[in-house]
């Protein structure tokens, strides 16, 4: 799976799950504020990522995630690590 595919899948489920317009998602935008995430929403992100990519995230994986780009990169790294 290449970087573009990861971004497309992630953006699609974020739009679907958090009911936001596609336009608000840009690589440099702050993910938490843009999506209005609270602590419970991170639980659901773990579930969705596992179901889409087969990788399990923990709390520590989100520590350095601020922008959407950070999120894409983190997922890509987890996929590579699993492979």
């Amino acid at each position: 799976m290449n970087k573009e595919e990861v971004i497309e899948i992630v953006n699609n489920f974020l739009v679907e799950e958090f009911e936001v317009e596609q336009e608000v998602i840009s690589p440099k935008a702050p993910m938490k504020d843009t999506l209005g995430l609270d602590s419970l929403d991170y639980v659901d992100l773990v579930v969705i990522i596992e179901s889409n990519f087969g990788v399990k995230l923990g709390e520590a994986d989100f520590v350095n995630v601020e922008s959407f780009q950070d999120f894409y990169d983190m997922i890509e790294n987890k996929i590579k690590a699993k492979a």
Partner: protein
Amino acid sequence: MEQRRVVITGMGIYSCIGTSLTEVKDSLYKGTSGIQFDPERKAAGFRSALTGMVPTPDLKPFLNRRQRISIGEETEYAYMATREALENAQIEEGFFDEHEVGILYGNDSVSKAIIEATDLLREKKDTALIGSGAIFKSMNSTVTMNLSTIYRLRGVNMTISAACASGSHSIGMGYLLIKSGLQDRIICGGAQEINMYAMASFDGLGVFASRESEPEKASRPFDAGRDGLVPSGGGATLILESYESAVKRGAPIIAEVMGYGFSSNGGHISTPNKEGPATAMQRALSDANVEASAIEYINAHATSTPVGDANEAKAIHEIFGGKPPVSSTKSMTGHECWMAGASEVIYSILMMQNDFIAPNINFENPDEDSKKLNIVSSTLNKKFELFLSNSFGFGGTNSALILKKFNN
């Protein structure tokens, strides 16, 4: 302590005979059954695949994602009923920021939510993959925890779990809190999930009606040919309020709660007796300070089981004699279980508002107990102003409520 009058200023209903007060009133008048045959239950190994069915409401226009993923089936129905009740009570959402409102709601199972969460755990073997909404759907207090959050309620907040008397006790307890001056307004009601998981082990007891080829004839309370109940569900909400509060805000007053009686059988876990229900009815009469002869209609608990209906008929006859009209609306709705005590008060108020008594459909042949009662088998056009509603449940919990048409 000064005792305050307690009135009802709003009602909402989401049931198998209609998803609004207007629809339900029409069904009650026409004697329409909401019972269906569910092939999924048959395939799953149910002895009786009959059930009341309600549509799944679309909540997206009303609730955000976080609110929706925390609520299960029973709360969806309760929410729809509560929307209608608040609208009729002329209470808008901003009201809750300015006034303390409580919630006491009847619910006694969350089977589907627990099974879904458990299935996920077994499949994934990781609790982190169950999702954030599951815990809030998997607790018995799911209805009150969610509705109190959605409406930002700041008063009393708890679920009443008392088997098939849950909804009735929620009204009774709300009445006591308002009467004593501890609360001014409480959202009361009952909710019941309708999926097959909630009813599988109940079906296993062999107490469900067997007449699968004629679903609308299967629930036949008091009839000699009855052979069991039909499970059902939905949501029913009533807004209870002190008379002073209702008058102060110019609310429409629908009815007055006059009396509440409760008791416990002190006997078998599932087989009811006569004495417990009779005690609850006597206490309700005493609390309402009315004679038995003043009751103009009795909405019976009668679920269509052989022993339960017989014992209730004996208890009613002992206290009220054979004169007052009696019907069990479960003949049309099936047994709405945790919701039934609340929904049946709404059904009775709808009759009282519209001058009729809904029929106990399928009452064709009386037995030795029911022949002594005045059971209404076809719609009776009749004005009445005072009724009693019975609800009994597993463990021998009993509740009786007396309500009156509101007169200034």
